[in-house]
């Protein structure tokens, strides 16, 4: 017999969104239980230390400009931040040639660079016309959702050097290529994050700052006051629900199987994963089919750790955009205290899939080639090289974010946040500000907590009559 507990709200998933919802609901007096499948909190926010003692983020790691919730939480928890290193030149590797540039746009081909800027502006202006709270209500939504971002790029940029560099940025941002992304979804996502130029930037943009000691501290700090309301090692596999009650079953993890009875459930996980749980009764078709149309991106995050950030002495800022090999982009990831040097990079989209098939050794060899080409021979010999292959993570199955394929948002969009009986949806994918980012996770947690509190308040008032 499973251990049984009762509460007002059961939250499934102790990432930033679930923990934020749990905190807000606890603060207004609801009894909350948070079930987490893993043996840690944080979800896609995961800080680890290498055997050599280097602390790094396996998942989300940046604080962007204009991310007030994340900044406020960090300040509240005493987690300090520091600017992402950006002084000096970035490296562009394109068509087998290396060049360096200053600023956001690779300039080896000035005409292509200007073409790229024009395309970014056109996309960002179009994004402003897509309402972030209801992209499916955009003017011409069905038409925009009937094509991919690649279709748009083919029409506006063609097969040019500018396209190559835009593809690198898109892969890094979405974890997948433009050919998989609904244009409507891409425009929504750009609008929610302040535009493509903003999402691609370090200084003044999405990668502006880093957390001293890693981003997972935010989740740990949110979880601490919740105490034993957070149950680790408790994967949820089945959810039975009625009009205003829900029973959630866990099992197969480190914790003993649990049966949690609650008045509401918050499912704080990407849509694709929520669709894999066994619901009784089955989810409405529209919700389940939305889950089928929002796959996770494919990204392998790579950290190369050196004794010192030697590239800085060469006037390089550690950034790379490349159209060859495994790594399509890198950033300086050295710690703020100067104790060692590190580069973080991404193997994304089809590269991620290709190197998963080729195997860890082939991926590592390709990464070292990429690093050497960009930063010199000493880059080939990192003290440690760690890879985090997100598609293999059982309770995330990809990253950095879920995307929407053509037809998903226009056909199924409202099901993204619409509650199903007592079931409410959270996670950065449901955010309207900074969807896909830590900030979006926090915003979605706030939103779902308010939504649940209102529905329980209404129910309590109804029962009182």
């Amino acid at each position, binding site marked *: 017999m499973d251990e049984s507990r009762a509460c007002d709200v059961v939250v499934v998933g102790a990432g930033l969104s679930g923990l934020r919802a749990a905190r807000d609901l606890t603060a207004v007096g609801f009894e909350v239980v948070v079930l987490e499948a893993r043996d840690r909190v944080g979800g896609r926010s995961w800080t680890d230390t290498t055997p050599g003692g280097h602390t790094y983020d396996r998942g989300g790691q940046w604080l962007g400009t204009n991310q007030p919730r994340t900044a406020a939480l960090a300040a509240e928890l005493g987690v300090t931040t520091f600017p992402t290193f950006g002084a000096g030149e970035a490296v562009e590797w394109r068509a087998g040639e290396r060049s360096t540039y200053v600023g956001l746009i690779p300039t080896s081909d000035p005409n292509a660079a200007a073409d790229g800027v*024009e395309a970014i502006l056109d996309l*960002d202006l179009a994004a*402003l016309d897509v309402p972030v709270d209801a992209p499916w209500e955009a003017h011409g939504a069905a038409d925009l959702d009937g094509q991919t971002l690649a279709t748009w790029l083919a029409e506006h940029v063609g097969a040019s050097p500018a396209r190559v560099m835009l593809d690198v940025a898109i892969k890094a941002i979405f974890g997948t290529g433009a050919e998989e992304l609904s244009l409507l979804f891409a425009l929504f996502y750009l609008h929610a994050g302040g*535009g493509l*130029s903003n999402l691609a930037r370090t*200084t003044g943009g999405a990668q502006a700052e880093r957390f001293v000691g890693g981003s997972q501290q935010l989740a740990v700090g949110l979880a601490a006051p919740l105490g034993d309301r957070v149950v680790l090692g408790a994967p949820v596999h089945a959810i039975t629900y009625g009009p205003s009650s829900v029973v959630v079953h866990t099992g197969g993890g480190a914790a003993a199987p649990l049966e949690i009875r609650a008045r509401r459930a918050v499912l704080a996980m990407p849509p694709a994963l929520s669709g894999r749980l066994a619901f009784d009764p089955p989810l409405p078709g529209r919700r389940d089919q939305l889950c089928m149309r929002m796959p996770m991106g494919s990204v392998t995050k790579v950290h190369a750790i050196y004794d010192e950030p030697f590239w800085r002495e060469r006037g390089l800022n550690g950034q790379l955009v490349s159209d060859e090999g495994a790594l399509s982009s890198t950033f300086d990831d050295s710690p703020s205290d100067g104790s060692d040097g590190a580069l973080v990079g991404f193997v994304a989209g089809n590269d991620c899939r290709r190197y998963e098939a080729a195997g860890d050794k082939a991926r590592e060899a390709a990464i070292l080639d990429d690093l050497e080409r960009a930063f010199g021979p000493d880059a080939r010999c990192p003290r440690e090289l760690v890879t985090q292959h997100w598609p293999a993570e059982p309770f995330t199955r990809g990253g950095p974010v879920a995307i929407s394929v053509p037809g998903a948002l226009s056909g199924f969009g409202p099901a993204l946040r619409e509650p199903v009986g007592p079931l409410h949806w959270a996670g950065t994918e449901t955010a309207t500000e900074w969807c896909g980012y830590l900030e979006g996770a926090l915003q979605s947690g706030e939103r779902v907590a308010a939504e649940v509190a209102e529905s329980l308040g209404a129910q309590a008032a109804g029962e009182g009559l």
Partner: protein
Amino acid sequence: MASAEEIADAYADWRARSNGNERLRKMVRGWNRIVHLHTTDTDESFTLSVLDQELSALTRGGVGQPDLIVTGSSEDFCDMFWGDLNPSEKYMSGEIKLAGSGEDVMRLDAISMVAFLDQ
């Protein structure tokens, strides 16, 4: 500090180059704006407009209802108009401020990327 005359000279140069640059003209298509510039150190105001893909001459003083207000030091305006200073870094550090819509900020960002490609 730069005088109003120095700013006007620099702007005249910028205007001639911008109006002759097909790429920049394309980027302001459909974007008609009255812009006020305000210097923080010399407390001067200037007005210019973008109309039908053309930059107007610079007028002393704040004339008309601005769509966009740019605030910065007189030196920075001068350096920017001579093409020596990419304003985006100053914008990010808060030394140059913009009051305008999201679209206006995106346009200016893109324009400065193209105008200062090598900076």
